[in-house]
């Protein structure tokens, strides 16, 4: 429904009303069970820490958000008055639809903290962090990672170098692969250096070359294999470093920048699409992406109970870990392999396995996250056409 030029598009009032109803019910549920069950242990400490970060950031945004809401409500009132003055039902409908949208945004802002951290129902918290906890366990869940002491990254205990939680686990796994590639590269280079020197030797008689190292096909093959391996390792290393920095970006910005910024942007009609996209990206990449990465990793062990005190973490561990031990050995940094052996056999295996680990598993998690973002964005009034185009081009 458009007038000439100035588009008074009537949004779907039923969808907005449904959204408002859902948020209202959530709010009521939160009020009905105001006492949030305490989350104990490392998981509780992790959620508290994230809540502190979020609150620190959002506290500075309250004025901004409330100002934006008031501006929009004032503008909607003016538009409604204009519609009343001109007896234009179209303008009045637009003002009403916008009022509902602003109300939905206001509810989201005011209850964002509850939705992410505190919503409880029937004595159980059902907030976003708790959904994540249900999926990956709230106890001593862990993942095999040789970059952390003990060889296992305990999810909620974390590591000072990588942080805590699923994103910390992802960074640990990535660092493990980076170290493995670096070591493998050094080993291949060490193996190749004397071979290449040998290949460069040429014997001359009467000024004519009578034998050169490069004429030895076996030697030449080994040198070329080393070149090929190093080239592949460079690609893998670039990808791994990019993934590490990307994870750092997500860890620092999704919950503290994208989500609050999205909530504020969603208030204004002309930034609603962007705001919805930001909210969906913030939630998707902070909660969905690392969670699915963990779930698709076969070394992940879910544990809901905290570890027994008598168990030494990382050494004795309850649960299935057969394949994890095998794979952890493959990417263990500092493997003292024979140089030539690594160049021909172990190097190939390593590159193959690292390529799968670097490209395949994160890609599966990324696809699942994008499906989530795609489903959530329209619900929030967002537009994700550009994002999908970019992803398809990258693909």
């Amino acid at each position, binding site marked *: 429904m458009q*007038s000439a*030029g100035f588009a008074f598009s009537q949004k779907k009032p039923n969808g907005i009303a449904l959204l408002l109803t859902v948020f209202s019910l959530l709010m009521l549920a939160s009020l009905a069970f105001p006492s949030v069950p305490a989350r104990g242990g490392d998981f509780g400490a992790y959620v508290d820490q994230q809540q502190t970060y979020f609150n620190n950031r959002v506290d500075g945004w309250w004025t901004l958000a409330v100002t934006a809401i008031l501006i929009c409500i004032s503008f909607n009132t003016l538009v409604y008055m204009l519609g009343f003055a*001109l007896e*234009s039902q179209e303008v009045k409908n637009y003002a009403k639809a916008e009022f509902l949208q602003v109300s939905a945004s206001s509810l989201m802002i005011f209850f964002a903290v509850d939705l992410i951290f505190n919503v409880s129902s029937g004595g159980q918290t059902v907030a976003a962090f708790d959904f994540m906890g249900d999926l990956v366990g709230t106890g001593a869940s862990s993942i095999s990672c040789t970059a952390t002491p003990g060889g296992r990254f305990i999810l909620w205990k974390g590591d000072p170098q990588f942080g805590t939680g699923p994103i910390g686990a992802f960074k640990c796994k990535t660092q493990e692969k980076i170290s493995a590639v670096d070591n493998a590269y050094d080993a291949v280079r060490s193996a190749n250096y004397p071979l290449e020197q040998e290949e460069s030797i040429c014997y001359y008689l009467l000024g004519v070359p009578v034998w050169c190292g490069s004429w030895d096909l076996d030697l030449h093959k080994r040198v070329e294999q080393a070149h090929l391996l*190093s080239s592949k390792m460079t690609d893998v290393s670039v990808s791994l470093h990019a993934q590490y920095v990307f994870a750092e970006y997500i860890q*620092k910005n999704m919950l503290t920048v994208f989500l609050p910024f999205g909530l504020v942007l969603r208030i204004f009609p002309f*930034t609603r699409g962007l705001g919805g*996209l930001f909210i969906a990206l913030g939630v998707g990449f902070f909660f969905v992406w690392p969670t699915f990465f963990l779930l698709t990793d076969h070394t992940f062990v879910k544990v809901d109970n905290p570890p027994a005190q008598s168990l030494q973490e990382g050494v004795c561990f309850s649960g299935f870990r057969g394949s994890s031990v095998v794979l952890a050995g493959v990417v263990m940094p500092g493997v003292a392999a024979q140089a030539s052996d690594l160049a021909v056999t172990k190097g190939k295996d390593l590159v193959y396995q690292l390529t799968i680990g670097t490209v395949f598993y994160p890609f599966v998690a990324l696809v699942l996250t994008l499906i989530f973002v795609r489903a959530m964005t329209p619900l929030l009034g967002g537009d994700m056409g550009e994002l999908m185009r970019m992803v398809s081009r990258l693909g």
Partner: protein
Amino acid sequence: MQAKKTWRAAFFLFISLLAASSLSFADNPFTCNLDKFNDTMLLCGIAALSMAALISLVYIGGEFAQSARMLTWAKTEAIQVFASLAIVAVVLFVLSSMCTFQVGEFKDVFGVSSMPKIYQSAGGGSDSLYGGAMRYTENLAALALSNVASLRYDLGAYEIRTSYNTFDCSGDCLFSLSSVSTAPFSGNSMNLAISNNMMGIATVSYLSAIFMYFTLVYIYSGLFIVFLPLALIIRSVPFMRHLGGSLIAIFVSLYIMYPLMLVADAYVAPGFTANALSAGNSGAVVMCARDGRNCAGSAIFSTAAQDGITCSPAGTEPCFGHEEWGMEGIGRSQDAMNNLSPNEPARAIRLNVLIFLAAVFLPAINFIVIAAFGRELSRFLGEEADMSRLGQMI
């Protein structure tokens, strides 16, 4: 009842005319020293006033002729005049805010813990958002160029090392013409290939950074002075409204969102190096100064509290073991060849990834944001502009 409606409509038109006249004679709130914008804003005001007068005439004519069609047209156009005035006012307000808002205030408003070093060292964050965006792109382009210079040196060094041959002519080789040639540094050919690979990434990063820089120059100089006011005027004309709305959306999103996103990138970039690339056994991110560039621009990854990239000047560790080998023909001995010490490949990979993310990945996110904003705004203004396709055409 009919008289009441007429009175309300007349009152609204009167208010609109008052608003339009006050706009056309208002002091220009824009403080970015672009005087040409005054004239164009005046044109916008005159266009709005003319339109309001035309609407009044049509409305009077409609009342006189009892033509519902004319009355409806007048009402619709009255709304559009109101909308145009609101758009002009909002655009002016936002632009003047952008000119007066300082990058240091960005930190306070958005609750960021620390300010990027590039802003800290330049007047303690007193740059406007436009100045801040320009400072960031200048530094990013300089860093990308420093990286290219560093890699260029590496490539040269590896080329020379791999092609260096010793010719062993001992004993009676002069009489027997028998000898042995060896390339002692031929094992560096692996690193040569990697440096080549990195050079490709570095070139893409540099092209992207320099593209961002010139785009910003174009936006500041051409877009604002010529196209944005033109779009505002076009929107004041009834039959060009869709085009005008679409153009306003594109230009406003470029003129407001693009610099804003670049300043946001400046705040995000130092976070990449906080724990990321100095972790584990990877070592610190060290850049070697080559070609007299002194790691220009590397401050974009630093905050006031810590440096993200450490610059190692020419002739010092860890870039060189001894003295710099000038690649000008001096030092033809094998000992001198050892001094031709390029970067470690792993270090070049880390540095290149970092610069690639800042110069290519973050701008890609920026483009998604700008395109989504432009599409929403153009839809709001009456015509949906597919900025992605427009970008493809360009």
